[in-house]
């Protein structure tokens, strides 16, 4: 279980997260949604790694995340970051095997090799195993990174132990085609069903309504709404948060809620855009430039 209790996080004078509380349970797929700069990635980071919060705390498995050992944590929690390295001249297989590093000293165990094969299969990249990562397309690279992240907490025997494992995905389908979006989210759902606690940041509201067990809608660092997709996505709320008129319809075949932006009434919304453009970008830009070198 992930419990966040009233977490507030600010960088400089800018408050990125404002008193957010949430509970994510094992066995469910929780999706964090919201416009650009709402604090989704920041929240995901605060939930998944040691962070200097202003107030509040995050508990994983009932104990404070801040004091947990990174080594122990790496065996129960895996994170896919939004931006990933692109120029690595490693073989795909080698990169995916890095997900198993916490489990062996110098030589991978047979189990590790087996898991690598399973996740390559799950992400539909078996054919790329021997390719050099830097020569792959963006979508393929994203699936390789996903495979690495999955390998880190993959269980061969579904009920091997009672420990809940955590999967954090920051925009896992951002560069994937229609088919592979489904591949990835099906895998995420299957893992949630198998007892993992899965938290993902997604932008596509239709994918969210198709797959999310629970949705947390963020806006400017506040929780706007929390609940099932049908409860969270209302015309008024979407208008307020995204500044966009939408149609809500139910898919005649599956009955799933569909969110369609109304392009005929679209106009640039001056009151919302400039604000969130300023929000995160400054602080993020600085830390990104520093990281990138």
């Amino acid at each position, binding site marked *: 279980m992930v419990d966040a209790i009233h977490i507030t996080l600010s960088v400089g004078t800018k408050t990125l997260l404002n008193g957010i509380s949430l509970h994510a349970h094992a066995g469910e797929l929780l999706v964090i949604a919201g416009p650009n700069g709402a604090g989704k990635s920041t929240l995901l980071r605060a939930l998944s*790694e040691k962070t200097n919060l202003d107030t509040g705390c995050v508990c994983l498995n009932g104990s404070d995340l801040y004091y947990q050992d990174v080594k122990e*944590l790496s065996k129960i929690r895996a994170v896919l970051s939004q931006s990933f390295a692109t*120029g690595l001249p490693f073989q795909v297989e*080698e990169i995916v095997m*890095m997900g198993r590093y*916490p489990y062996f000293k*110098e030589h991978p165990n047979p189990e590790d090799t087996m898991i690598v094969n399973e996740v390559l299969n799950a992400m539909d990249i078996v054919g790329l195993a021997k390719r050099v990562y830097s020569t792959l397309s963006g979508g393929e690279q994203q699936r390789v990174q996903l495979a690495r992240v999955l390998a*880190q907490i993959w269980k061969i025997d579904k009920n091997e132990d009672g420990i809940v494992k955590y999967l954090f995905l920051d925009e896992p389908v951002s560069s994937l085609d229609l088919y592979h979006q489904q591949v990835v989210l099906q895998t995420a759902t299957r893992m949630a069903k198998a007892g993992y606690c899965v938290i993902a940041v997604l932008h596509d509201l239709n994918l969210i309504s198709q797959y999310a067990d629970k949705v947390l809608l963020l806006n400017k660092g506040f929780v706007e709404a929390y609940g099932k997709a049908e409860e969270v996505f209302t015309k008024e709320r979407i208008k307020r948060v995204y500044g966009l008129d939408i149609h809500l319809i139910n898919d005649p075949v599956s009955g799933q809620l569909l969110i369609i932006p109304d392009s005929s009434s679209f106009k640039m919304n001056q009151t919302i855009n400039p604000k969130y453009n300023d929000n995160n970008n400054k602080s993020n830009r600085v830390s990104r430039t*520093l990281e990138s070198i």
Partner: protein
Amino acid sequence: MVITSKQRIILIALAFLLVAFMLLSAGNGALYISPSQVISIVLHKIGIYNLVAFDEGQYNVFWIIRLPRVLLGLLIGAGLALSGAALQGLFRNPLADPGLIGISAGASLSAVLTIVFLSTLSATPYYYLIEGMVGYYTLNVVTFLGSCLTSFLVFKVSRTNGKTNVTTMLLGGIAINALCGSFIGLVTYYATDAELRNITFWSLGSLGGASWNTVITILPFILIPIVLLPRLSKALNTISLGEKEAIYLGVSVDRLKIQIIILSTMAVGSAVAVAGMIGFVGLVVPHVLRMLGGFNQRYILIGSSLAGALLLTGSDLLARILVAPAELPIGVITALIGTPVFAWILLKHKKESQFI
């Protein structure tokens, strides 16, 4: 991480070449000792006699002059290339080399200061006081301390809130390099002709000071990094994914940075202290290995030790025989034979080498 069969072949080939060059280097010079004589001299020492005949002179030259020199070259080459590889991995920057974080700058400045200071002091009785304290090795000791001091300074500058920022560290290294450079300029301006000559030769590097004493002294400083750095190769592999990803994979990134900086300062500081500035090795050897066999850090680190040792053993051999009985500065040779090899590999692997 598993070393692939191609990487294993490269490592074995390097090891064989290294042994061959050690035999050649130990045999060549003013007094020739054939490779088979070299082997039988070594075997004689451990109690196996009468393989190939050799005389007393050869025996002494080998044990007192040649072997320490070969071993010194081996250690220094391995240390320089290994730290270069580890720093490039840590900084995720192909241009990182021991000079970049201030190790060499501190060594140069303290060496230049020592050379000038000692020769100025030699006219006074204080000289014998210092000589009595650290003796013949003053220059080596001061140089080592100087390199430790600057790399510590750069490291200190880059730390905020208990975390080391790699970019600040690179920028700090550049600043320290510039500062030390200007001081060196200032000191050389006031130096006499004799001192200038000493400074120039020191900055070109030499294994001329080799003796069993120097070998034994720097042995631990280079052997410890050779043993410990490859153990960090898994962590260094994950660093290439990004620092955050490495943390997610359970690597204590900050501890890793400290370990690598201490180990490389040990190796480079002691190498520069006994042999002066030998450039090129730390920067280029890891690249050659990457282009030949891939990015796995375990292979890169082990391979760099071997290839660095090989490059320096070979260079030293050339430095001694090219203008015999005189001797060329080894720093000149490493670049002279290293660059064509590097250029050749670079051209051959043009396609795969976009990362340079």
